[in-house]
């Protein structure tokens, strides 16, 4: 009775995660398990069908050391081109904005301008530099993102940010497309005698043969 019909876990179940054995323990929390991170996933009206969440945001309270690996497909999507430039300019990042519904790939200059506008809007709201905002997109190739819907949803997305497990799970659901399950995991281990946490989320089901660099 307490669960709302709009809870992300009501849309798709969580995947079984096959963590290899090692000197770590699996803990709840996904991408928000590590200190300093918040996340949110909401429905922003980007999907063609249904009301499953389709916008995710991950933020860090401080400048986070940032790294990226990207497709080596020569026809790279606009957000891929943007992120590579951003990480060339900046060694740190504060936010990752992800949309599902439209891949914004093979969309030319107009698609790239869409990415810049989304990054600028979020950077302004979070009071960070544009290059500290990274963008990922997934969905139908050849379609530009539904920019107006996305920009309208950004304030609600930012207000939904939380360091709770729910934030991580809703973000993990929001990035899915044809996935039947959401993928989220976190572990705790020791580095140099100090407890550290590593968390993550991913999506993917088809068009899967990554060669990222």
């Amino acid at each position, binding site marked *: 009775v307490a669960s709302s019909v709009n809870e992300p876990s009501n849309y798709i179940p969580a995947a079984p995660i096959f963590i290899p054995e090692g000197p770590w323990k699996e803990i709840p929390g996904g991408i928000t398990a590590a200190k300093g991170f918040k996340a949110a996933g909401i429905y922003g009206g980007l999907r063609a069908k249904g009301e499953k969440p389709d916008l995710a945001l991950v933020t860090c309270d401080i400048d986070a050391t940032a790294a990226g690996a990207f497709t080596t497909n020569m026809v790279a999507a606009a957000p*891929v081109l943007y992120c590579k430039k951003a990480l060339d300019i900046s060694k740190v990042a504060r936010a990752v904005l992800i949309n599902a519904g439209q891949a914004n790939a093979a969309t030319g200059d107009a698609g790239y301008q869409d990415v810049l506008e989304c990054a600028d809007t979020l950077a302004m709201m979070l009071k960070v530099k544009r290059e500290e905002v990274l963008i990922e997109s997934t969905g139908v190739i050849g379609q530009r993102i539904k920019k107006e819907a996305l920009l309208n949803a950004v304030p609600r997305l930012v207000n939904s940010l939380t360091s709770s497990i729910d934030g991580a799970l809703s973000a993990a659901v929001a990035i899915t497309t044809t996935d039947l399950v959401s993928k989220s995991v976190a572990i705790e281990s020791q580095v140099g005698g100090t407890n550290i946490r590593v968390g993550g989320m991913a999506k993917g089901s088809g068009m899967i043969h*990554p060669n990222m660099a």
Partner: protein
Amino acid sequence: TMLGVITTDALVKSDVWRKMVQIAVNRSFNQITVDGDTSTNDTVIALASGLSGSTPISSINCNEAVQLQACLDAVMQGLAKSIAWDGEGATCLIEVIVTGAESEVKAAKIARSVASSSLVKAAVYGRDPNWGRIAAAAGHAGIPFHQNNLHIMLGDILLMDKGQPLAFDRAAAGNYLKKAGETHGTVGIYISVGDGTGSGQAWGCDLSYDYVKINAQYTT
């Protein structure tokens, strides 16, 4: 398309973090395959806040870096395997482990060649313990090895040893595949190609009729 976001509160220098992330990506997401199509959007972003209070990591060779690398590998491999498990139309995860190669890179390449073989994937869906398709897929990976050193196991059933096909229990091997398919479990394919120290893994899924259905209906 596959997307990923990784977060940690370990403290690590930028250039070391970027190397570590690429190593982990190579050992995980770059070792999965569902359909052989590389997306335009594949992205992994990894952020390190440093808020755990751990010792700063400024060299990729120090003990702390080795420990963090292992954690990063584990998280990315866990997520990568889930993607392969959830492959469109899949009824099971295929895990290929190759040992005895000259290097990790060479072993990984052989493993991915087997995991991405349409014939191997279709055989697993057909619950057919087809060692010949596995051997062929290993052989066309572009990594030289002597076929008399080839050793293939399906689960714990030995199918080929020293390049020679064995009289294995076909019914048991077929049942192993059938059970994995019925439970959406894991099919393990273990291959050795020699005496080298290189080992590598790759993950894929079986190829079912549903894969075609899904992608005939999902336009791009």
